[in-house]
């Protein structure tokens, strides 16, 4: 960090009290309108620098009467100003998050000793373990401070997600950390959540750190779209990364926004397993007897054939018996039930309810192509899949397909990882995969989470290189155990207290952050939280526009121009 940059900042206050448990209190020495809740501040002491967030501003007075009775009318204005300056004040509440050892002043003799003592260990920010002294200066974080904590765009793996709200300093997220664990993007409808997601996905694609499997329920991400509010054209990922992004349509001959996808996905009937059906209990209004019936079906026909066999049965089909009596036909559900000691009514009921599945065009006896393998192959090759649901955008399709596909992919990744670990030299490590899940609460709610693959991924798949990127507007609906696994959370405005509470679950300083979250601007202001983020911060998110694409696609890696670096650091050559 450069001293000249740091000195451009003037202190906004000084520490007057506080504790690690209950934030720090600082006396503000600039007008309160110059600082805002959520601002990123630096607290300087002699050897240490602390980083924190303004979580509250309180007006105070040494005596309430000074505040009650305006002195301007009674006193000379100069004296009144002095009086107000001394008796009326604003207290900042600062949530300390990180600290960094700066050592003595680089110009002092002690600095050399300090360097020697520390040896080669470079300074690194650590979570705050102590507090600054009284009267320590509080300054707004400058560009250098922000870069110190959030990294610089010029470094590989760091992606600028937005800017600090007040000074507009670039704020980056560490994409490696973002995908290292599952993450979430939250925000109420209309807060720009899908734009933010597009931005992050673009960054991930650009940085080539992982393959993405995007379940594009509403056909938003793959192809160009029209913004719901401005009616302007919104570029899709395929258009910007034509080689890297593959659009997959669901079902034979499916089209996405009138265009043919790169390839289609069909499932073989043999792919359907009983738990896939159980997953749809709520959707299909299945009864408690369903698991028993499914078990019996698997016992009768085997795991691969039970679906096709069951589909082929004809419920209510009867034949004339020898005695002239009507009796269930041999191909009827009832006959099978009778033979296998299954409740006939339960079996017919299940069959009836599964009729919706039986009619799905993308579950076929024999898929024309092995779409699933195509997908896996593409993902392994570093390509990204946008699975477009096309016309099948009801919950049944979404639940079934995402689960089916993810289960298969998970199995494949587990298999590949195990193979790699057993024979490191012969097989490649599977590529890092991020499963992007829209409307996540439908799959990860309290009832479903235990049954779907996604909770397993959220909980365990980190070690197999698969993580989730959860996108949702109702985080409170997501199973708390899954929420707690989300390493990074990027959150826009939320109106519901339960949602706010859910987003903050498992984080330190929840109480202080709650207010900040509740008072975010409805658009373009987001808060960064969680393990993958060095410290919570409210930022102005980047705009998903031509400038963004210009900056992103124009960015060059490799050797960075030295002059440019010097200029960014404040040295004008």
């Amino acid at each position, binding site marked *: 960090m450069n001293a000249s940059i740091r000195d451009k900042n003037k202190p906004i206050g000084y520490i007057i009290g506080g504790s690690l448990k209950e934030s720090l209190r600082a006396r503000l020495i600039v007008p309160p309108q110059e600082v805002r809740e959520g601002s990123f501040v630096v607290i300087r002491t002699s050897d240490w620098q602390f980083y924190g967030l303004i979580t509250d501003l309180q007006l105070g007075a040494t005596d309430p009467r000074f505040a009650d009775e305006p002195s301007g009318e*009674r006193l*000379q204005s100069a004296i009144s100003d*002095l009086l107000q300056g001394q008796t009326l004040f604003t207290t900042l509440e600062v949530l300390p998050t990180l600290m960094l050892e700066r050592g003595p002043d680089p110009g002092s003799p002690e600095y050399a000793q300090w360097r020697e003592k520390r040896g080669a260990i470079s300074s690194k920010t650590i979570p705050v373990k102590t507090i600054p002294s009284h009267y320590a200066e509080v300054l707004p974080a400058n560009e250098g401070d922000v870069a110190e904590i959030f990294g610089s765009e010029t470094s590989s793996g760091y992606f600028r997600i937005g800017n600090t709200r007040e000074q507009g300093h670039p704020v980056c997220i560490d994409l490696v950390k973002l995908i290292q664990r599952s993450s979430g993007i939250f925000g109420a409808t209309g807060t720009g959540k899908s734009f933010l997601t597009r931005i992050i996905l673009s960054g991930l694609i650009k940085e080539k750190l992982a393959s993405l499997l995007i379940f594009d329920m509403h056909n938003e991400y793959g192809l160009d779209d029209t913004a719901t509010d401005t009616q302007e054209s919104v570029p899709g990922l395929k258009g910007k990364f034509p080689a890297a992004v593959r659009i997959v349509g669901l079902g034979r001959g499916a089209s996405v926004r009138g265009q043919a996808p790169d390839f289609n996905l069909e499932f073989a009937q043999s792919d359907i397993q009983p738990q896939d059906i159980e997953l749809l209990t709520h959707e299909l209004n299945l009864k408690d007897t369903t698991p028993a019936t499914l078990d019996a079906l698997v016992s009768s026909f085997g795991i691969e054939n039970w679906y096709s066999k069951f589909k082929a049965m004809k419920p209510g089909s009867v034949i004339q018996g020898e005695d002239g009596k009507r009796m269930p036909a041999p191909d009827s559900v009832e006959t099978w039930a009778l033979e296998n000691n299954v409740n006939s009514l339960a079996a017919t009921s299940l069959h009836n309810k599964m009729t919706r599945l039986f009619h799905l065009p993308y579950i076929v006896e024999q898929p024309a192509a092995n779409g699933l393998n195509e997908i896996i192959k593409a993902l392994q090759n570093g390509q990204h899949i946008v699975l477009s649901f096309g016309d099948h955008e009801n919950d049944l399709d979404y639940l079934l397909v995402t689960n089916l596909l993810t289960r298969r992919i998970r199995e494949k990744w587990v298999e590949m990882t195990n193979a790699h670990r057993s024979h490191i030299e012969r097989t490649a490590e599977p590529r890092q995969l991020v499963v992007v899940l829209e409307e996540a609460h439908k799959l990860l709610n309290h009832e479903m989470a235990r049954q779907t693959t996604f909770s397993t991924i959220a909980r365990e798949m980190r070690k197999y290189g698969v993580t989730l990127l959860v996108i949702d507007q109702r985080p409170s609906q997501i199973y708390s155990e899954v929420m707690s696994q989300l390493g990074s959370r990027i959150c826009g405005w939320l109106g519901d207290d339960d949602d706010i509470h859910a987003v903050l679950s498992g984080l330190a300083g929840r109480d202080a952050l709650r207010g900040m979250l509740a008072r975010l601007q409805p658009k373009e202001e987001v808060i960064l939280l969680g393990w993958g983020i060095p410290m919570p911060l409210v930022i102005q998110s980047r705009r998903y526009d031509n400038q963004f694409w210009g900056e992103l696609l124009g960015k060059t890696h490799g050797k960075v121009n030295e002059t440019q670096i010097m200029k960014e650091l404040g040295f004008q050559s």
Partner: protein
Amino acid sequence: MNTTPIEIGRLLRSSLTGFVAGCRVDQPSLPVFGTLVRVPIEDQLEAFGLVYDIHMDDDGLVRQLATSHSLPPEVIADNRNNRNMPVEISIITVGRRKTGILSHLLPGHPPVSLDVLYRCTSQEVRDFTTTGRLGYFRHILRAEELPVGELLAAHLEQARAAHRESGDPAWFKNATRELITLLRDDYPTLMSVLNALSDLGPE
């Protein structure tokens, strides 16, 4: 503004925290309320104080004369000059100069009867009021029986003029700020002082 020491009167009685001097009614150098004065106590020791009261006692004759319809000028002159009734100037001790060093501590012992009282020069006012950090305010603020607001206003007005004379207009602002700091837990006193200062008006 004065540049040479002016003898004002002589001490009548004293204590460590204050003293009373007497002077003649017709004296042209009669000090005004809030004037910074000094009394040499002994070699290398002086007490500094602020004039907080100036009063004249009456007696039966004055009371009787006051009721008279017309007083000839010779009677007024006689009463003012030759009747044994000095103007009494009460002074609160606010500091000292010991072996040439000014401080806002009290002198070790009080001045004694008939010691001579001098009005401080502008330079002395500047020197005294810039020594330390206006610590002498504590002596004034502690004296609850005094008209603290008026005394401070009178003193600050004179000191402001002395500082402005030497090109330091910020002194008054700093002094006001210091008073606010000292009194911010005492709302009634502070407002009384600030009201008095406001009445001074801008210079």
